[in-house]
């Protein structure tokens, strides 16, 4: 079983955003004021207006395609996006009218992808393989954006270097660097004036807790006892619609072609509390994660074969993402087991509350109504285990040291030269950022706009010349060599044989020089995090993952559930 939120995690230089979908929707002003407006959850120490210009800046930095004017029916006006919206295809377009009939307006999804050439990176070719790592450089992952920039400016990247703790001075007043282990398991220290933890929402608290000293017996920056608390995620309600005709579902982007905030107000669904963000029109492959191989888990053998054959032409999906409220009981804490370096593992305790379940259910109900309005031959809910998507919280920001871990710039209240970056500092989750840490990270950087302890400006201009596009991107295809076996196989004969899983594998090998098997394995490489943080849930979705226990494609909870397609939350 998968660890909480784990399939959005990732490792390797570039992190999880190597395989994210680059959806770039924003939070709305209400997300920042949930406590004051609804007396629920928490308030942020800052407002939408404080971060708005950074949203605009990041859009320019990384290259976002979209229609800002169209979005401004839901959010305050900002700058136009640097590129026009992406192309749309029938698998997205057919949702527009059906949604409108139910009072849901769809706008072009804003995505960190190139609809035109941008900063030396090519325009998207709409082959729909975003989720396994964009092979062309059209998608703005860290390697072609900020990380390339950092390297060119002289930043040194040491791979296979596992940070095990933050080191403090004797007085306990200042971080002096970090301890880490290299690929040969040799211990090193890296002294530094400033330490930034950007290791994952669940990993950052674990590092803080594991760095306890005599002066900080509960862990660093943890006088409040809130390190590791308020872990949050998103959940998705996916609805399938199957047509007889070809809906071009292999084309587009994995994320979405259209989006809507019309169910975003916190009380949109009667009897439930929390935002919903709707997307329509994902490119679908025959794969299991991000595709439709698990859209009908009740089918086997010839029935599955027949379904896959139809689905490969006629299946499309509407997805509604829901917001989980911050709950202090949802937490990362240290486990008794230790990792290979002798450091205690993390353990996640998490359960969804009634509001989350109610929003999830309401979105299935509404999704089904909308799907029926498309005129599809068959429609059904992709209901499996309640998914845990996009891990947030654990080191939340606030104005007071007694009720938060960091300030609005990501700087810990307790130790001036220790910073946290990423969505771990979010006090509420919203529903819209179903893209991974990246934009959130940008946002947290946006929040670091003030000169910090060493006088730097974390928001100083970050431009991008591109240039690392294709080559660097393909650098992720580590499985290629192992699976290459003399080059790509032709696609056509496989389809004729009717083996669609095999077809997917070969198609991918053909396009990207790597087998589909590798695709699954790469995605699931993310689950290697099980060695560090294992999920333990009191709810229905994720059970314990023990260190060393193998996790492979097919082991996720979405594979185990009866019913259809629990993987509906695969969007990142």
């Amino acid at each position, binding site marked *: 079983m998968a660890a909480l939120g784990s399939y959005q995690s990732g490792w390797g*230089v570039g992190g999880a955003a190597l395989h994210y979908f680059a959806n770039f929707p924003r939070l709305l002003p209400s997300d920042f004021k949930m406590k004051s407006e609804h007396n629920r959850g928490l308030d942020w120490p800052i407002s939408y207006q404080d971060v708005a210009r950074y949203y605009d800046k990041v859009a320019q930095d990384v290259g976002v395609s979209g229609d800002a004017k169209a979005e401004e029916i839901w959010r305050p006006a900002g700058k136009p996006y640097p590129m026009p919206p992406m192309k749309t295809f029938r698998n997205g377009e057919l949702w527009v009218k059906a949604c409108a009939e139910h009072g849901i307006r769809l706008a072009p999804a804003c995505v960190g992808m190139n609809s035109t050439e941008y900063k030396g990176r090519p325009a998207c070719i709409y082959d729909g393989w975003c989720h396994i790592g964009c092979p062309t450089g059209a998608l703005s992952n860290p390697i072609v954006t900020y990380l390339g*920039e950092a390297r060119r400016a002289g930043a040194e990247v040491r791979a296979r270097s*596992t940070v095990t703790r933050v080191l403090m001075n004797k007085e306990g007043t200042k971080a002096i660097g*970090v301890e880490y282990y290299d690929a040969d398991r040799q211990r090193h220290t890296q002294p530094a004036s400033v330490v930034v933890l950007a*290791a994952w929402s669940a990993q950052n608290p674990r590092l803080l807790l594991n760095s306890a000293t005599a002066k900080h017996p509960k862990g660093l920056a943890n006088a409040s006892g809130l390190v590791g608390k308020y872990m949050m995620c998103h959940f998705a309600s996916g609805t399938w619609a199957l047509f007889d005709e070809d809906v071009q579902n292999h084309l587009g982007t994995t994320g979405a072609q259209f989006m809507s905030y019309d169910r975003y107000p916190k009380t949109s669904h009667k009897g439930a509390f929390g935002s919903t963000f709707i997307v329509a029109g994902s490119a679908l492959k025959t794969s299991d994660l991000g595709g439709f191989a698990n859209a009908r888990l009740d089918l086997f053998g010839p029935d599955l074969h027949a379904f896959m054959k139809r689905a490969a032409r006629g299946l499309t999906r509407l997805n509604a993402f829901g917001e989980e409220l911050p709950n202090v009981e949802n937490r990362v804490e240290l486990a008794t087991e230790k990792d290979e370096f002798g450091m205690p593992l993390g353990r996640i305790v998490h359960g969804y509350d009634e509001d989350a379940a109610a929003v999830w259910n309401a979105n299935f109900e509404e999704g089904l109504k909308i799907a029926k309005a498309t005129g599809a031959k068959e429609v059904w809910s992709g209901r499996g285990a309640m998914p845990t998507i996009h891990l947030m919280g654990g080191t939340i920001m606030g104005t007071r040291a007694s009720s938060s871990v960091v300030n609005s710039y990501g700087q810990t209240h307790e130790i001036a030269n220790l910073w946290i970056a990423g969505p771990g500092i979010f006090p509420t989750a919203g529903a819209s950022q179903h893209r991974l840490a990246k934009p959130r*990270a940008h946002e947290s950087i946006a929040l*670091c706009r003030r000169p910090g302890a060493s006088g730097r400006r974390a928001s100083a201009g970050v431009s991008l010349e591109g240039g690392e596009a294709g080559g660097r991107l393909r*650098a992720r295809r580590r499985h290629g060599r192992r699976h290459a076996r003399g080059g790509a196989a032709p696609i056509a004969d496989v389809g004729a044989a009717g083996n669609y899983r095999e077809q997917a594998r070969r198609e991918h090998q053909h396009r990207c020089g790597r087998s589909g098997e590798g695709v699954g394995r790469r995605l699931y490489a993310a689950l290697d995090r099980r060695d560090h943080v294992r999920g333990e849930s009191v709810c229905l979705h994720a059970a314990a993952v023990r260190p060393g226990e193998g996790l492979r494609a097919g082991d996720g909870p979405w594979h185990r559930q009866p019913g259809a397609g629990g993987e509906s939350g695969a969007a990142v």
Partner: protein
Amino acid sequence: MATPVKSGEKVDAVIAGASASGSVFAATLAKAGKKVVLLETGPDWQLSAATSRAGA
């Protein structure tokens, strides 16, 4: 390009995680002339090990 950081040499900032978030910090600080080291537990995916053609 800056000279490589020597073993044990103090830098301006060390970042745990060559991630989306870490890379923004890294880019911003490096461009401001600060000496930055990113530590990443995973591998640095290389082109040569990646595509069938290049890696064959």
